[in-house]
């Protein structure tokens, strides 16, 4: 059975490794799955004009983001033979080295999950109205921009 019901994507703060590990554990009962693939976005300590990023504070146009996440899910299920997929994105402050995006796809076979994961992550970066304030160690900031 395909897991298509709408889910809450946003989580306050960083996504913990316990949460990620537990998500993997929960899929052990879904025995039609033969392959998982996982993408983890981690906040990087970029150095810009000699200042180092210490955290990113995420905000989003939540209503539109949820609609876009739903469209991406539908498109991914349409395009790829997936058993299930999960997307979690942080809101609020995420420190460098912590996880801000967790995408988890599962399928009976491996080739599908490589392609599906890339499709989903690229769509999230391009289409979902999420904004990131890069906070430097001296408390100044600039706005992150995906490219």
């Amino acid at each position: 059975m395909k897991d298509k019901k709408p889910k809450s994507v946003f989580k306050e703060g960083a996504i913990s490794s316990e949460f990620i590990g537990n998500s993997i554990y929960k899929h052990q009962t879904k025995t039609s799955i033969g392959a998982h693939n996982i993408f983890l976005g981690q906040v990087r300590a970029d150095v810009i004009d000699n200042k180092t990023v210490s955290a990113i504070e995420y905000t989003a146009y939540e209503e539109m983001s949820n609609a876009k996440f739903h469209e991406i899910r539908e498109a991914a299920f349409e395009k790829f033979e997936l058993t299930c997929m999960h997307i979690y994105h942080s809101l609020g402050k995420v420190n460098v080295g912590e996880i801000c995006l967790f995408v988890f796809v599962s399928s009976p076979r491996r080739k599908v999950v490589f392609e599906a994961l890339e499709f989903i992550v690229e769509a999230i970066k391009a289409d979902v109205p999420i904004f990131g304030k890069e906070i430097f160690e001296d408390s100044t900031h600039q706005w992150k921009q995906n490219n």
Partner: protein
Amino acid sequence: MRITVRYFGQIAEITNKEKEVLEFSGHTISELMESLYSKYTLLKTKDFQVAQNQELVALKTELTGQEIALLPPFAGG
């Protein structure tokens, strides 16, 4: 017509608010933008897209009311 305009990220830093309700008599997104540019002059220096009722729209699009959002570059992931 009554329109709710929402501002995000660096756009909200310029407008100094995240949301406002405006009475507006123009007919297109472009006319609304001209009105916002005269109210918030620094907006012209920023890169953003416009969403009407949660869909990205072009400036020539007819204004149908409800919710307009000014969206700076996306940074998810």
